[in-house]
Structure formats: structure tokens, C-alpha cells
């Protein structure tokens, strides 16, 4: 890794920290947020220079996502830039779409879930394809101009990748809140007509690309968790030093000290795996590390979240207090991207 890159990443981390500090209310308006991200150049950041990106790759994404977790940002960087953008960047036919995504003029949601088989079916038609089916929990689809969807081709085993405008006839969106306040939608496709040119894959091979993008997605989600649990740890440690019970700071009680130490270790485990996964030069190793980082981020996140509430006590049960919001963030991430055990076989196949 060149020193140059190291420096760029350091600068990025500083920018992210400043950006998050300025939106510390945790209630950033997502629409405005997207424009700001575009202005900061972060929409160019994940993709290789060959396709017009900045080439900061997973290391850059990890820095941006840690900021998202830390600041509880609702901007859909993960589903739009990492998931949808990640697929587009791997499809030579999608170079125009990718360019629009990087400019921020087109916002593309990801109508596919990590580890799930396609829920849509594409039938060939004269002028292209007809898409039918339904995708649940498409993140931030209300902010998207289009969705990127996976569909099984006819009755075959082949999977195709399709770009569909959200205002296309036959597309319906049922929007709902996630338990942490982010939004998602169930997107229905009622024989939606898609032009042949909007099938973006090269007639197959989507699974391979998907596996790579899924690993990057899991790493990005792990980084989001990391940012969130870092705040939980810091706030809990600070609280334990200040809050008094029985005449002394609760952080002076040994059983609490040991639990705080274990929180710190669990945090460090995630930090180490995320850092290694983001920096790993070898694609196979990076993939395995990304999956491991995700799994560990959930294990650690559960412990740190539950301990953060317990150690804060009743105050953490209030809607106003930040602890609950961070706990919900990590919990929602887990349910969206899949519990640890669901990824065990993926990890074993990559290591």
C-alpha cells in the first residue's frame, strides 16, 4: 500500500470525523445529506480509477461507514454506493449508469438482499424483459430514482441484473419505517417492462460479482456497527466515571470495571477485523475477513449494546437518550444483513 494512499485515507478519516461532528444531532435530513456526500466526493470514492472512481476501495468505504454509524447518519451510502454502485462498477455495460451515480445525479437503490436468492422473475419479451415479483425491505427506496434488481431468467438457473426506474409503470412501493427510524420499502413488480439495454450483466456471471459485492456490503455494515458501538462504549465508560451510587462512582465497582474491560476488548476485536479486512490486498482473504468482521461486529454489538443499557440504567431506556438509538441501529443492521450464523458457511467457503 502506497504511503500516498495511507495519507489520502488519513485525510478522509479526518474529513469524516469533522462531517459527523457537525451533524451530531443524529437527525440529519437524508436528502440534504446525499448532496453533501456528493460534494465531498465520497460517491466517487469506492470505485477503481479505471471506471472513473477514486480507488479508495474498502478502506475508504470503511472510513465513511464508521462515520455513518458514529453519527447515526440516515444517508443511504451503504445501499446506494456500496451495494448498487458496487454492482454497477463491476458491469462494463453499466458505465453510464455508474457515472451518473458517482455524480450524484442518479440515486439507485439495491433491490437485493445479502445471501438471499432472487425473488423476481424476468421473462423475455420482444422489446426486452418483463419483471415480476416483490422485494422486501429495500433500503431508502423512497429516495431512489431507480432500483437495481436481481431476477431469475425465465425458468433457468441464470440470474440477470436489471435497472428499473421507480416511476416505471407497474412498479409499486410500500414504504415503512425500520425500528431505528430509517426507511425501507417493499417494491412490487407487476410485469414491469424493462428495455434490453437495462439488463446490465453479461448474460451470466452475476453470482460471482454478487459474492464480491456482498462481502463489501458486510464490511461496510460492520464498519457502521463499529462506529455505533464505539460511541456506546465511550458513553458508557464516561457515564461509569461520573455516575455515583452508594457514595462512589459506579465505575469504581470491580464487577462493573471487568464488564467495561470486556466491552473494550469486544470493541477492539471488531476494530481489528474491520481494519484488516479494509486493508487486505488479497481478494479472497479480504472477503473472508469482511465476513468475519461482520459476524464479530454482531457478537460484539449485542454485548456492548445490552451492557450499555444495563450500566446506564433507566436513563438509557428513554427515547431521548442516545444509547437506545445506537442499540437500535446495530439491531436493525443485524436483521437487514443477516445474523452471524447465516454467514458461517459463507465464511468457511471463503477462508
Amino acid at each position: 500500500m502506497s504511503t500516498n494512499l495511507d495519507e489520502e485515507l488519513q485525510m478522509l478519516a479526518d474529513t469524516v470525523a469533522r462531517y459527523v461532528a457537525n451533524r451530531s444531532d443524529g437527525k440529519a435530513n437524508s436528502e440534504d445529506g446525499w448532496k453533501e456526500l456528493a460534494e465531498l466526493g465520497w460517491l466517487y470514492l469506492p470505485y477503481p480509477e479505471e471506471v472513473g472512481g477514486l480507488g479508495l476501495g474498502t478502506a475508504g468505504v470503511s472510513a465513511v461507514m464508521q462515520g455513518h454509524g458514529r453519527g447515526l447518519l440516515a444517508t443511504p451510502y451503504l445501499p446506494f454506493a456500496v451495494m448498487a454502485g458496487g454492482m454497477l462498477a463491476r458491469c462494463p455495460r453499466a458505465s453510464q449508469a455508474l457515472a451518473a451515480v458517482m455524480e450524484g445525479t442518479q440515486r439507485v437503490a439495491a433491490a437485493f438482499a445479502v445471501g438471499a436468492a432472487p425473488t423476481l422473475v424476468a421473462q423475455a419479451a420482444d422489446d426486452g424483459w418483463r419483471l415480476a415479483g416483490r422485494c422486501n425491505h429495500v433500503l431508502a427506496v423512497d429516495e431512489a430514482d431507480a432500483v437495481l434488481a436481481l431476477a431469475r431468467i425465465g425458468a433457468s438457473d441464470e440470474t440477470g441484473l436489471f435497472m428499473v426506474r421507480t416511476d416505471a409503470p407497474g412498479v409499486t412501493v410500500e414504504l415503512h419505517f425500520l425500528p431505528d427510524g430509517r426507511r425501507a420499502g417493499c417494491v412490487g413488480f407487476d410485469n414491469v417492462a424493462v428495455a434490453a439495454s437495462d439488463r446490465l450483466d453479461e448474460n451470466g456471471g452475476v453470482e460471482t460479482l454478487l459474492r464480491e459485492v456482498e462481502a463489501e456490503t458486510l464490511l461496510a455494515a460492520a464498519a457502521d456497527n463499529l462506529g455505533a458501538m464505539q460511541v456506546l462504549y465511550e458513553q458508557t465508560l464516561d457515564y461509569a466515571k461520573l455516575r455515583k451510587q452508594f457514595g462512589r462512582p459506579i465505575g469504581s465497582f470491580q464487577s462493573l470495571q471487568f464488564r467495561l474491560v470486556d466491552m473494550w476488548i469486544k470493541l477492539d476485536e471488531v476494530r481489528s477485523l474491520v481494519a484488516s479486512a479494509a486493508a487486505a490486498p488479497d481478494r479472497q482473504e479480504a472477503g473472508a475477513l469482511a465476513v468475519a468482521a461482520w459476524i464479530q461486529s454482531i457478537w460484539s454489538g449485542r454485548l456492548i449494546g445490552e451492557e450499555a443499557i444495563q450500566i446506564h440504567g433507566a436513563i438509557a431506556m428513554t427515547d431521548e437518550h442516545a444509547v437506545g438509538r445506537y442499540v437500535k441501529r446495530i439491531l436493525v443492521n443485524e436483521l437487514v444483513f443477516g445474523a452471524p450464523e447465516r454467514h458461517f458457511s459463507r465464511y468457511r467457503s471463503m477462508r
Partner: protein
Amino acid sequence: MTMIFSEEDKAFSAEVRTYLSDNLPAELARKVRYNQRLTRDDYTSWQDVLAARNWYAVGWPASAGGPGLTQTQRYLFEREYGALACPHPCQFGIAMAGPVIFTFGNDEQKARFLPGIRENKDFWCQGYSEPGAGSDLAALKTTAVREGDHYRVNGQKIWTTWANWADWMFCLVKTDLEVKPQRGISFLLIDMRSPGITVRPIKTIDGDEEFNEVFFNDVLVPVENRIGEEGQGWTYAKFLLEFERFSMSGAARSRRVLSEIRADAEALGKADDARLVERLTRLEIELLALEHMELHLLARSVGGENPGPEASKLKIRGTEIAQALSRLRVDLHAEDCLVHSEAFLDALEPSDNPSAMGAIATYLNQRKLTIWGGSNEVQRMILAKQILELG
């Protein structure tokens, strides 16, 4: 120790089961089953059903106007009650204010307050916790200064469950700032309609509003509303803490939740999922152990032995198991839990998937179990000191 129930006991069980299931409205049961929010009216109308049979103040002795059940009948009542999706009855009047009044109150206080509690006329809340004094009651700051026939109360309570619905509060206040905390605390009954009281609901992480802040600004409380001696409030509070722990295992409720989760798993076609079955079986055996710890402690109290501090073990394990179950429900329904609907939680809107819809709110809500009623850390401190005799 004998675990065998007499024919009379069995008949009593059947009577409870029949009455409760005959009188539990289906709609209310559905709200409880799916962890939707209950209104004040949900509670009081159900408590009227109980009171009609004199089973609201179910633990009261006959001398206080209660049903005078044996310990065994109490246990069987709780078991039948927990097996059905009945609302958990509000405890502050029947299990806390009431027992303090009939144990430490004078005759006039008994005549004045007990019927309203027993017959579900008055809604009570508990004024213990303050900012800076949660598990540690010695740090209380709310003062009550004697002025002739009244106390003038100033200060603040917090985490006061249902203060927004309550007619009365039983309250710990400082009446003497000079002596050490354990001797300067008194136990007052405060009319929530008194001038100078402000109640502000606190929204919790599950979106509910059961907790409140209560502010006292020069609130005048008649001296005849003081229970027992001035400065003895600590003694009454301690009496209640042990009383409370004994009913805090929640085993019967957990047993019901366990079977609901098993039913959900079958409905989802996951009844053969090895990992899930293993977690369910594990929790079921942990729950069985809890139930039998409780039974044996009960059998000892039937024999005249007070459960005392040992009951803390039931609070610890019961809350840990209830939390594990609430987590298991989330894991079972996984991404189906992701749809958040306030309207569903308020039972204003139906859902195709009601079991999943309330799972996350319940998981978050249940985090309180290990915090309130004396945090589990405090319970462990009690056991370490009083049972294990560790200095």
C-alpha cells in the same frame, strides 16, 4: 417438602382457570399476546373483572378484606393466570401500597384506603426513584417539611410508572436532613390531584410512555397521610422490596411466551430448525429450574419460613430468562421484525404478521427487567452479603 397438591387445590386451580378464560375478552388477549400497548382502560376494565371475584388483591389476607388464600393457592393462581394472555395487573396498589397500609397503617388509614385499592377504584403509583437515586435509596433528595397539620413537599421523582394515570402515589420523602439517610425518610400517601404536582411522561426506547417524571412544587400533604412513624420509611420500603422480589420471577409469563414462540416456529415451518429447537429446549429447561426453585422456596414459606433475601435469585433468573425469550423471538422472526408501525403497537391497525411486529419493541422494553425493582446487580449484592455472608 412435599410437592403434591390436594384435591381442594386442584379444584381451586380449575375454578381460577374457568373464571379467567370465561371473562378474558378476546381482543384484550390478542393485545397481550402480540405485545401491543395497553390503555389505562384496558387495565382497569380487566381489573374490575378480577375485583368482582375479589381476586384483584389476590395476595391479601382476609383480615384486610382479601380472599385470604393459602400460599399454595397463591402459587396456583399465579400459574393459571400466567398461562393465559391476561394483562399483568397493576401492582402498585395491591402489592405495595396495600400491604404497607394493612401492615403499618392505622385503622383510619385502613378504612380509608384499602377498599379503593381492593375494589380497583383508585389507580396507584410508586414514588421511589429520583434523578441520582435509583438503586441507591439512601441518596433521596425530595423533602417534606412539617408545617402544622401538613407536610410541604418539594423535589422530583423519576421513572414513575403510570404516574400519568394515577390517583394516588405512595412516596418516600426526606423528613429529617440531619440524621443518616436510613432514619430520615418517611412514607407518605399523596393525592395526585394536589396542587403543585406536575407529571411529565418519558417516552421509552420502545416508543411507549409508561414512565414519568413527577415534580413537587410546594405540595401540601396532610400529616394523616403519613404511614407509621416519621423517619421509619426506610423500614417499610425494605419490607416491600422482599415482598416484591418474590413475585418477580415472571415464570408463568415466560412459560406462556415460550409456548407462543414454539407456536410461531411451527407456523413459520421452522419447528425442525436444529439451532432453534436447541435454544428453545435450553430455555425451557432453564425455566423449569426457575419454576422449581420458586416452588421449593414457596414450600419453605408455607412451612412458616419467610423467603427473605433468597427471593433475589428468582428476580435474577426470571428476568434473565424473560430477556432471553424476547431476544429469541426477534431471532426467530428475523427480517420480518423490520416493519415498524406505531399504529400496530397501539392496536389501531391489524397485521398479517403480528407476532413479528411487536418483537423488537418487546425486546427493547424487556431490557428494563434487569434494571428496575432493584437492579440485578443490587440483587447480587444482597445475595452476596446476606446469603453468602461475604464482607
